[in-house]
């Protein structure tokens, strides 16, 4: 139940961001710094989420099959594979590595 509260709050805040753009005078948001921070934060958060999901297990760091998934996904992306293909390649690499014994 606790998760529901944070989940719904996240939904409200996401909608609030979207509305802000339509209702706040353009002048305020036109400061290039605002849009720059929105951009650098997007990159930073996605990079962080990528690495956390690759090497973190709770509060410990681990090198396991997920590293193989990261490498395989990078190769797929370098070959300009569409999103779903990249995701399937990532899953396949992790599953395969586990099958041959690398946790």
């Amino acid at each position, binding site marked *: 139940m606790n*998760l*529901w509260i*944070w*989940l*719904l*709050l*996240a*939904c409200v805040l*996401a909608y609030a*961001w*979207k*509305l802000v*753009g*339509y209702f*706040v*005078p*353009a*002048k305020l948001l*036109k400061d*290039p*710094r605002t*849009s*720059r921070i*929105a*951009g*650098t*934060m*997007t*990159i*930073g*958060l*996605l*990079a*962080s*989420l*990528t*690495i*956390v*999901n690759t090497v*973190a297990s*709770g*509060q410990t760091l681990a090198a396991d099959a*997920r590293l193989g*998934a*990261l490498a*395989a*996904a990078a190769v797929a*992306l370098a070959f*300009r594979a*569409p*999103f779903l293909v*990249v*995701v399937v*390649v*990532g899953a*396949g*690499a*992790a599953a*395969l590595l*586990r099958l041959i014994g690398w946790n």
Partner: protein
Amino acid sequence: MKLLASPAVRVGISISIATGLYGISFGALSVTSGLDFWQTMALSLLLFSGGSQFAFIGVVAGGGSGIAAMSAATLLGMRNGIYGMQLNALLHPTGWRRYVAAQVTIDESTATSSGQTDPDEQRRGFWTAGIGIYILWNLFTAVGALAGSGLGDPGQWGLDGAAVAAFLALLWPRLKGREPAAIAVVCALATVVAVPFVPAGVPILIAAVVAALIGWFSHGRSDEGLEPDVDPYHPHHGRRDRSNNTRRDNQVDAHLDKQGDGHGQTGQAGT
């Protein structure tokens, strides 16, 4: 069908299918990271912003708290405010349309709209992509969630690897040039260093603070990182080329300037 003769509508439909389909991976990953079916659907129906949705379940999957998941999703949603401002300048929606437009304001609907030059086409592109993705994204989220809940052990299927791949694929199109790559590396390092010392989920927020500081103190392109996951004008090509970007920015600027409220600053970028 006169509507189908519109290039923006055609682009909007194809981007809807491409983006909507990967709702399958969101739905499947969401239920395997511990959310139930309706929590998964609530994210797609109400939050409706792919990156933020993946962020929310990514933090939960890593054992992070609800508040950390909410914070990561919310920080990642900031760019939708910038898109709202751009779209408001392009389309001037009024009355109830504003509230609907806001909900479907995401990377892809913004890119579809701002890639067009004719105001009517911009409007059609936005609504076709926005509504189309909304419907298909939710439909395929449900499909993925139902399929995912029958999978058993997610590790055996490599679903944790799928999450890694999904985040990398969301990041990838935003890494054009040395600067965004450097930001990504610095934030990834900050994350890894923080993992052993703070509760799960918090390292992601630390990385967000690092990224915000970089954005505040450095002077680079002001549209860095603001790219769609699936580019409507170069489908299947991870990267958007610079000339396209420049056109999009100048155009938004031209519209802002027409309103007489200042200089075209968003467009310094890319030129």
